[in-house]
């Protein structure tokens, strides 16, 4: 070792220590709230690529808006509902004949899920409810019950059997049938966001909140499990009924307390029957589906509300869906249904449930 080395060695040691100090694994976090499809989307992403992934997620949201929105005139769904450039035998003058559309993969997946749920509930859940849902105004909290003649006219246009998927071709056999993805779209979008984030090696975990639909995966920086609270029905927004802890999966609630109004002592809420177009009372205030498949869980939360506890449990068993459901009954009772074990468990308010994926 010559003199030069003798001086350089300690300096290199110091430099090395400085550098290793700087590269101590810092957990990068990026979080933001955006508003899409009339829903707030809050994403918190962990990992080296968090910033970039976050803005990419919002780009994806914007793209989905152009597929699923029933209100946006530029969306794929809107154009189909209004029979723009319809293929097949559709006659725009008489508004009759079968319309044919070659649709995107995203729309096909959402429709397939919606059609399956419509089939499984024999039309109590109906993917073609849009003419009816458009008559109800649940946004302001002081809406009114639609006129009966209008409701009957709208109901005559409802019928999921008039929508058919053949591969990536959608057939609408009735000229006036309109599709409503309100109960499916958010789940499809959060599933797509999660798939994208999980495909990136520079993302270690994330929590996605699409208008109250929660999805979590990966690791929280402090290593603890994710904690998801569940809204207490008819309480201040953010007040908790109970909370669940999980390492991965989605938590999706549907309830009568959300988007509703009271008129003459009767509560009218947005969970509408495909049979008569009126709010359904199935003995439940809320159903929360905890699962792995966001799109399925989103649809199921509405299906559970429509079918009620016993019938929805039967359906979940029959289809062997990999979910757990928390039911809040009109009497305030809380039950956790785990089809894997076949168990039903009474839960106390304020509980902290630890769920296995």
């Amino acid at each position, binding site marked *: 070792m010559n003199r030069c080395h003798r001086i350089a060695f*300690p300096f290199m040691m110091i430099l090395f220590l400085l550098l290793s100090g700087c590269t101590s694994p810092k957990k990068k976090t990026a979080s933001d709230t955006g*508003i899409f499809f009339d829903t707030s989307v809050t994403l918190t992403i962990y990992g080296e690529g968090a910033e970039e992934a976050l803005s990419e997620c919002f780009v994806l949201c914007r793209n989905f808006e152009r597929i699923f929105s029933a209100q946006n005139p530029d969306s794929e769904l809107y154009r189909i509902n209004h029979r723009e450039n319809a293929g097949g035998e559709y006659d725009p003058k008489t508004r009759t004949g079968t319309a044919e559309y070659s649709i995107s993969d995203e729309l096909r997946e959402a429709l397939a899920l919606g059609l399956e749920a419509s089939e499984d509930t024999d039309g109590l859940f109906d993917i073609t409810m849009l003419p009816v849902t458009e008559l109800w105004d649940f946004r302001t909290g002081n809406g009114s019950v639609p006129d009966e003649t209008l409701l009957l006219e709208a109901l005559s246009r409802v019928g999921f059997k008039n929508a058919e998927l053949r591969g990536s071709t959608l057939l609408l056999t009735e000229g006036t049938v309109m599709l409503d993805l309100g109960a499916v779209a958010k789940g499809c979008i959060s599933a797509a966001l999660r798939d994208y984030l999980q495909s990136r090696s520079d993302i270690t975990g994330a929590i996605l909140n699409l208008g109250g639909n929660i999805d979590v995966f990966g690791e929280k920086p402090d290593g603890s499990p994710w904690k998801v609270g569940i809204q207490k029905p008819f309480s201040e927004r*953010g007040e908790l009924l109970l*909370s669940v802890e999980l390492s991965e999966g989605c938590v999706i609630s549907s*309830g009568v307390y959300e988007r509703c109004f009271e008129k003459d002592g009767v509560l009218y809420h947005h969970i509408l029957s495909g049979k008569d177009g009126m709010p359904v009372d199935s003995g439940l205030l809320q159903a929360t589906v905890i699962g792995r498949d966001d799109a399925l869980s989103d649809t199921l939360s509405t299906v559970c509300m429509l079918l009620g506890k016993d019938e929805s449990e039967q359906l979940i068993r029959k289809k062997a869906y990999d979910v757990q459901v928390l039911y809040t009954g009109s009497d305030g009772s809380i039950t956790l249904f785990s089809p894997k074990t076949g168990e039903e468990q009474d839960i106390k308010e304020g509980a902290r449930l630890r769920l296995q994926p």
Partner: protein
Amino acid sequence: MARTDSASEKALGSRRKTFRRADLWLLLLIALSSVLLFVFFLWKDTRIRTPVLEISQDGQVVGVYPLSEDRELLIGSKESGGYNVVRIENGKIRITEADCPDRSCVRSIAIDRRGGSIICLPHRLVLRIADGAGGIPDAVAE
């Protein structure tokens, strides 16, 4: 003995002599600086940031406020419509008044230093605690 020493010094060259003094100091310096650096980064990572209220509208941050001072803020204008009144009181934040159609922001639970957010969808307004202290769920399923 002195002879042997100087003989061995000669044999080993000048390497050993300098190691005994300057290099020992350098080693100490390195050890000390590494400890200092370690402590510094540890402190930097875990130091407690003060939670603040961040208000944004249409995706743009329009204001950041400490939770320690009580105040009332008017977002938007009452004359032209589209307003929310935000109140910070005893470290708790609420929207006390708004002319949005659903008024779900007014019916939202107060947020505080632990974290959380209040959203007014029609007015595209988001109140959020930045650098929240924690102790509340990561999200709420609605």
